[in-house]
């Protein structure tokens, strides 16, 4: 009995990519996402006769999420951020918060904000950002330079009136 009308091949070709992307978003590591995706389709193969057509493709994504959850359960204790944040979760208050600066600079596009945030808040290198966003390092460098230029303009415009009244010294930036 083959309760699923489509062939396994068709399902693999149609959904391998979407399942992989779900896995990649869930675990952020390409090699692990590939492994989880293969586990999902292995599970599909093993459950082939028990599934009905209406269960697909949702079943695939459910299994993908479960496998990703297993991955995180396994790695939970190894995450340094978790142990570092056990006692206190806070979002430090800066005199001039990056989030506020990014939000006020309307000329920035999402890719600029993402590059800036990954660079300065997440502490990623250009190479790591490039890999995360599927860009070249040169593109990332360009986005960062352009964003910094806009942010500098934004800061100067914001600070100039204050300095004229003897306020902040950020005009040096």
């Amino acid at each position, binding site marked *: 009995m083959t309760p699923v009308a489509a*062939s*396994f*091949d068709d399902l693999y070709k149609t959904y*391998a990519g979407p399942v*992989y*992307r779900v896995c*990649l*978003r*869930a*675990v*952020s590591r390409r*090699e692990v996402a*590939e*492994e989880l995706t*293969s586990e999902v*389709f*292995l599970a599909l*193969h093993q459950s082939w006769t028990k599934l009905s057509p209406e269960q697909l493709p949702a079943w695939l994504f459910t299994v993908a*999420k479960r496998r*990703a*959850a297993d991955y*995180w359960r*396994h790695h*939970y204790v*190894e*995450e340094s*951020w*978790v142990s570092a*944040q056990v006692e206190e*979760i*806070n*979002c*430090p208050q*800066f*005199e*001039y*918060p*990056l*989030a506020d*600066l990014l*939000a006020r600079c309307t000329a920035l596009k*999402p*890719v600029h*904000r*993402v590059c*800036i*945030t*990954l660079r*300065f*808040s*997440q*502490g*990623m*290198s250009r190479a790591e950002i490039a890999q*995360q*966003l599927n860009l070249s390092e040169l593109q990332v460098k360009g986005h960062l330079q352009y964003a*910094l230029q806009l*942010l500098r303009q934004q*800061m100067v415009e914001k600070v100039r009136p204050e300095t004229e009244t003897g306020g902040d010294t950020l005009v040096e*930036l």
Partner: protein
Amino acid sequence: MSNSDFDSEELELSALHGEPPQACPPLNLLLAHQEGVLPPELAQRIQQHLDRCPLCPMLLADLATLPEAPFTPGQEQRIAARLPSTDAGTPTVISSGPVRSRRHLAAFAAIAAVMIVCITVGSHMFLHRQPAPVANNAPPAVPSTPPATVAALEIPLAPLAPPGNDTVAPLTRGAHGAEPSIDELLPAFDAYNTADYATAAKRFATLRKDYPHSEIVLLYLGVSQLFLHQDADAAATLALARHAATPSSADAAEWYSAIAAQRLHSPDAKALLDSLCKKPGSKYSAESCRIAPTLP
């Protein structure tokens, strides 16, 4: 990341951003939380942070607007290679799959037949007069024009199974002999077996200091580096692994060296696969013979 990693313009914002670094969760945790796959306690902590931090929700919202990474044929091939197959490395062939095996094999046979016709005849007109037979429901595999060359196949990267306990003579193990003891290897293989290749690579690299000529350490360090896409390091490590290898692990060392070489666009990839192809007893032989002719 130290300040030396920033160029002069970036230092401006780095200084503004201030110290200590903002205690936001790493991006992988934020994304995992968004997908709802974190353990409850951790998810709760992330949510508490998101409720208070203006930056992280902005980051997640912005990321959602960016195009996702493409799903490449190489990735599809690597995933398929992990599925049970009748032909190692051939995508999506599962030996006992209902309906699928016959159709899949027929489709691949059709594709192979068409490719052969295209290459040997090389005539568009001929293809139109005598199209190659294509199985029912097979994907449209006939190219409209004959390809000038066969596209190089990617050598699939699959995890190398951990060695058995009898791989190396016990007398050579431990206490800085030729090979580490089982106990010394276990932490590295614990990470390796869970696909935590970053940790595995660190632990194998540590072992390498005490066992610089260990075939096991060099081989699995090289494989871990391949999974981490540290291709140049992997090529160097695996070259040493080939020299240190015993006959039982030599084929694996050559195979994974070929993967590193291909990623580095080195002609060594073809030479290594040709060598493996000529070893009929090797488990990599058939796959090497299939891929080697496609490499430059």
